[in-house]
């Protein structure tokens, strides 16, 4: 009975699990080849889960599933629910992008949508994790789903290579992460975040072990968000994975890892000397990620790969927020949440446009800048949408991308991290070059010859996905206040819990 009550506090997770399981069972009856029904069914599940997540924003923070005398593994608070809402919205758009891609790539398979739902469950568990083990469990649930999704086009060499690389590197990084948790447990005797915070105040014996543990934990997270120098897998994997999944990975996995990191830093390691030791380390990673990500994005000729590196650099901007947070600047928590929200819409939108433009047979060729020549005139609405996403990614008003950067940078200035802000601005300036290049090839490059047009029939799902993404980017840019206020409230719930 007690567990039943607890389940009502995490209804989003319950709904998603139920939807996914029913999907798998319905698959037995093989209803239709293109599985549009499965997409629609997942959308309903995601929408219902989103509803419960938003509803959970107002509820009191609850510590769930705690054994007698033990700390709670799951904490359902406003922060977790808000993060869940962002991830659910991201997954919703990713699912909307999928039918068109599946039709073009002929890779329809039954598990596709169920795997997305399971991954989201993992992400939400990460966001609500009350201890490091639960965090790890969520991370693995999420990762396994994404590994499989990456290689779901089994007959495609690039996809298989990507899946294998991702799995190997992921397993490798997970080893470090687990080792980090073990070290932390060894130093403090606990993995529960509130308990850790208490342990940290008292002088901890064996500080080097704790520091090593922290570093290894951060390395594991850095791998998941593709921060430099742990990013090497990302371009290969992003390029090989089905485009909607690339988008889903780029936003969902990143958001989950960052949200979990914010919770760990804000609850577990706030204001302790040992955690202060690792701040320079996060800073260095942030510097490297911004600079290397942007520089490498410039030299790419494949738009999908360019977006992969751009997503690396965006992890760098979000890391600035984490540094500010670790320095005790509380506004940074809401800033990171805002940034991730804006990033979700603009990145998924960009990948959505890619889904539309990729040709069936073209392979990697159809993703080159040159292949987009004149697309802005052939598909005017699409051109406008892509321009909005690129402008947003470059961080220009009136888009969410601008305010995301603004909030991050201003919290970093408050925390006294001028160097990082400078690097962030420099990176943004560089990024304008490659983002605008997309717009240039859309509008200002002469079409070499009128060759075969990409499939002109646009699925309703894709159109809806692009509309949602565009609306999200612009809404966040025009009415940023509501969302940042929500983020602040959510962050406050974190500190109460």
């Amino acid at each position, binding site marked *: 009975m007690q567990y039943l009550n607890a389940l009502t506090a995490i209804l989003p997770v319950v709904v998603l699990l139920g939807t996914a399981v029913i999907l798998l069972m319905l698959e037995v009856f093989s209803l239709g080849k293109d599985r549009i029904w499965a997409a629609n069914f997942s959308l309903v599940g995601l929408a219902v889960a989103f509803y419960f997540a938003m509803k959970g924003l107002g509820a009191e923070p609850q510590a769930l599933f705690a054994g007698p005398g033990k700390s709670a593994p799951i904490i359902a608070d406003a922060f977790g629910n808000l993060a869940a809402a962002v991830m659910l919205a991201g997954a919703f758009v990713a699912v909307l992008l999928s039918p068109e891609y599946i039709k073009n790539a002929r890779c329809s398979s039954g598990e596709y949508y169920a795997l997305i739902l399971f991954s989201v469950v993992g992400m939400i568990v990460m966001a609500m994790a009350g201890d490091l083990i639960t965090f790890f469990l969520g991370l693995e649930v999420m990762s396994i789903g994404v590994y499989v999704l990456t290689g779901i086009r089994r007959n495609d060499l690039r996809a298989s290579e990507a899946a294998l690389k991702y799995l190997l590197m992921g397993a490798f*990084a997970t080893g470090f992460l687990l080792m980090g948790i073990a070290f932390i447990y060894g130093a403090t005797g606990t993995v529960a975040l509130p308990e850790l915070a208490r342990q940290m105040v008292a002088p901890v014996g064996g500080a080097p072990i704790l520091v090593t543990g922290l570093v290894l934990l951060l390395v594991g997270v850095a791998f998941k968000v593709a921060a430099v120098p742990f990013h090497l897998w990302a371009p290969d994997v992003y390029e090989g994975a089905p485009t909607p999944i690339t988008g889903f990975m780029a936003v969902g996995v990143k958001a989950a890892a960052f949200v979990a990191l914010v919770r760990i830093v804000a609850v577990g390691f706030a204001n302790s000397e040992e955690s202060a030791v690792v701040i320079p380390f996060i800073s260095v990673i942030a510097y490297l990620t911004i600079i290397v990500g942007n520089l490498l994005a410039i030299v790419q000729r494949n738009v999908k790969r360019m977006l992969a590196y751009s997503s690396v650099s965006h992890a760098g901007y979000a890391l600035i927020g984490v540094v500010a947070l670790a320095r005790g600047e509380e506004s940074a928590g809401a800033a990171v949440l805002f940034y991730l929200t804006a990033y979700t819409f603009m990145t998924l939108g960009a990948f959505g446009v890619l889904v539309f433009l990729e040709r069936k047979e073209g392979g990697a060729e159809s993703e080159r800048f040159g292949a987009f020549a004149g697309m802005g005139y052939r598909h005017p609405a699409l051109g406008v949408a892509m321009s909005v996403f690129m402008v947003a990614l470059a961080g220009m008003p009136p888009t969410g991308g601008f305010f995301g950067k603004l909030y991050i940078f201003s919290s970093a200035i408050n925390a006294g991290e001028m160097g990082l802000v400078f690097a962030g601005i420099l990176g943004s300036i560089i990024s304008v070059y490659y983002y605008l290049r997309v717009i240039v090839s859309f509008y200002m490059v002469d079409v070499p010859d009128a060759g075969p047009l990409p499939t002109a029939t646009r699925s309703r799902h894709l159109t809806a996905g692009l509309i949602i993404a565009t609306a999200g980017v612009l809404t966040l840019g025009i009415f940023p206040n509501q969302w940042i206020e929500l983020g602040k409230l959510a962050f406050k719930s974190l500190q109460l819990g």
Partner: protein
Amino acid sequence: MIKFSSLAYIPLLPLIGAFVLGLWGKKMERSSATIVALSTVLGSFAITVIATYTMVKNNGTPLQAVLWEWIYVGRYRVDLALGFDQLTAALMLVVTGVGFLIHVYSTGYMEEDPSYWRFFCYLNLFVAAMSMLVLGQSLPVLFIGWEGVGLASYLLIGFWYSDTEKADAGRKAFITNRIGDFGFLIGTFIVLGLFGTMDFTQLRQAVAAVGPTDAMLTTGIFAGFSVKAVVTAACIAFFIGVTGKSAQIPLYVWLPDAMAGPTPVSALIHAATMVTAGVYLMCRLGFLFTIAPDALVVVAVVGGLTAVFAATIGVAQNDIKKVLAYSTVSQLGYMVLAVGVGAYTAAFFHLITHAFFKACLFLGSGAIIHALHGEQDIRRMGGLRKHIPITHATFLVSTLALAGIVPLSGFFSKDLVLAFASERSASLGILGSVGAFLTAFYMSRLYFMTFFGELRHPDPHMKDHLHKPGLSMEIPLIILAALAVVGGALNLPHVFTHTDGFLDRFLGPVLGTKVLSMTATAEYFFMAKSVGIAVAGIVLGYVLYGRGVPTKAAESFVESGPVHGVLYNKWFVDELYQNTIIRFTRFLGSLAAMVIDPWIIDGILVKLSSGLVSGSGRLLRKPQTGNVQSYAAVFVLAVAIITGWAVW
């Protein structure tokens, strides 16, 4: 302050009109375009009347409407707020009232223009911007309107843009005004730096709290200067803005060229309203100018010189609109002069009466040009009083008003300005009197050459197919002429009524009151002198031009010869600017184009930096081999370095 949110509709209605006309005007019926254009301005006028009534009923408490929070940066706050006090009311009634009359007139004047809708779109845009300027509760909001009217003016001067000369006139107006706007901005920043606010109400309080103005500032960015010095600098900067917008020396050069626009535009924008924005600004900031007496001296001298200088040029012009344009510059000089001697109410009084009679004169000249199928040269006119009697009558009344004949409106306002000027300093008074004489002379020259004698148009049949003005053009003329007659009642002199004039009492709370110190006898004498000067000018005009053609004496002194050469060519000021400032700017431009752009921007900044960036990008690509083993190796190496660094 009373909240009165309907204020927002005063600029909003014409803005909506401009929006609708701009987007759908081309497809609209002419009649529906007319309805949109006229109804929005009439609506603004109605709201202005209601607002004025509300304010007066509440004992003159200003009204306010805050539309939204606009700029909140650090300790600086600017709301998009509109305010409505007596000064606003006076000017807004003129802007929307006269503006509406001119809209009505334009329906007749622009009847046959293919871009009818575009004209009214711009005209509505102008009324919206001008309302914003007058209603703005702070300098930045005022500046929105200030720039907006500049834009509308530019668009309307170059309305017939396919004619290069007209398009160039538009650009000249815009660029000249940009120079002034720069001064406005500098002034704004100085004020912000000194007082920390740009809101008029707060500024007024801050200025009142300043204390001794000679004391040195010890803190802030102006440490080491006295308040007086800083405020003087700000006022001079604002005055540079005023010389642009209100066409004073040295930036007046755009206004005569601006006559390239359709005549209703010249009447509304370049005579009655927009060009008075500078005078309005100085009245609005009167509390600031008052503590900067040195700046006021500059203002007074520039105003007085402009009044005479422009009048001399007006004497030798042959284009009917050019004469009126220089007359406008000269009359604006009087308003500026009045501000310079601290007589804000007198300045505003002249602003209002001038709006009546000058709008009437311009619209009359429009009717004449319309009648003669586009002819603007007064040497080809003559004898028109028989053919277009209503235009003639209204033109005559307004000419007399402008010349300052008692008891027309222009007499009262100009006399007040001159009286204050000569009280301040005898030489300013003499400047003003010379200007008044010239005004009477060039206006009578214009009047006689246009309406007397026989029609001298090269087309002998012109007399038979004159384009008679319709009702839509005549009614505004009559209303404006009537206002030009009775406008003086707004502020009758103290000696007549033994009480303060209406405007004095009405504007007192905003502008303060200033009364003449001369005795009643002296004042009567002064008035007689003013009228005498005006009559002398008119008589001279009649002697030289009374038969509609220049007499021999006029032919040899005014219409030719060295004096004529200098005046006709406007003292060669345009040539002077061309050979100094413009040439220097061109030199800078070519320097940038030939040296700075290709070598420094393209070479060092672009090529070098892009080379650096893409070079380092290529270098960083090296570890990206696609080989999982090497990825893992990099990973381990990085972890080792970081852990080592963190622990030791």
